[in-house]
């Protein structure tokens, strides 16, 4: 259990670091794929089977393919996608100060904040962590919750997706831009 957690955490952190430090976006995409798959494994470990499958389908199947298409579209013949000097090299002192401040914030949250203390659950509603049923995280329990108590967020999701589709078509349509 511990070994699995440490291994997954190492893969997640290592691939995330590779994504943000990669010089070419294609390399970053491969690392991002590894990150998403490791996250899906983590979700299975946390009893969220449906969301693990959704993670693979939507992120690895749709979003990453979109990234790959855009890179193929932009870098055809032109090799200018990785030529820029980044802020860390151009503005080293503000960048390092900002990173140090962020890391300090992270350490503060880790050490001092009470949501990370073991007694956190005793302070919140309910007292102790709830036991989970066998169906927790399955398609059945997820669908029941989504289509009964939380049907309004589900409908708003449909609106968001329609707006996204219309926006993308309007943005990239040559004739409508003139």
């Amino acid at each position, binding site marked *: 259990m511990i070994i699995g957690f440490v291994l997954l955490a190492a893969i997640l952190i290592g691939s995330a670091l590779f994504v943000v430090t990669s010089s070419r976006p294609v390399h970053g995409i491969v690392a991002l794929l590894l990150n998403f798959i490791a996250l899906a494994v983590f979700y299975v470990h946390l009893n969220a089977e449906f969301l693990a499958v959704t993670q693979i389908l939507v992120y690895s199947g749709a979003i990453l393919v979109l990234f790959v298409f855009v890179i193929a579209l932009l870098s055809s013949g032109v090799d200018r996608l990785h030529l820029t000097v980044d802020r860390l090299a151009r503005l080293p002192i503000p960048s390092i100060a900002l990173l140090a401040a962020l890391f300090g914030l992270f350490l503060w949250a880790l050490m001092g904040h009470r949501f990370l203390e*073991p007694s956190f659950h005793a302070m919140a509603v309910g007292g102790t962590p709830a036991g989970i049923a066998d169906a927790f995280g399955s398609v059945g329990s997820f669908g029941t919750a989504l289509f009964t108590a939380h049907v309004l967020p589900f409908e708003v999701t449909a609106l968001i997706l329609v707006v996204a589709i219309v926006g993308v078509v309007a943005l990239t349509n040559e004739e409508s831009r003139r």
Partner: protein
Amino acid sequence: MSATELNATIALSALLLLIGFAGLILRRNPLIALMGIELMLNASNLAFIAFARWWGNTVGHIFAFLVITVAAAEASIALAIVVVVFHARLQTDLDDVSGLKG
């Protein structure tokens, strides 16, 4: 799920969010900045799902599902903007796209 495991998962989620944010603000390649945003959204999802497991409550799963949907919409629109800007100006540097600067 023990409290130690929850703490470790939340700490991992915070670290992933930090890495994604650093990528978003330090890189000037728009595609890698977008990947930083995706990392941040995934980190928040991890926290949602860890707390859902901790409380045995499905609402965290609903929220994570909505975040995934919004991430898909956001990625498609942002990539469309990158393509339009690249075709109009032939540049993919976030600092040079300053046409709206007052």
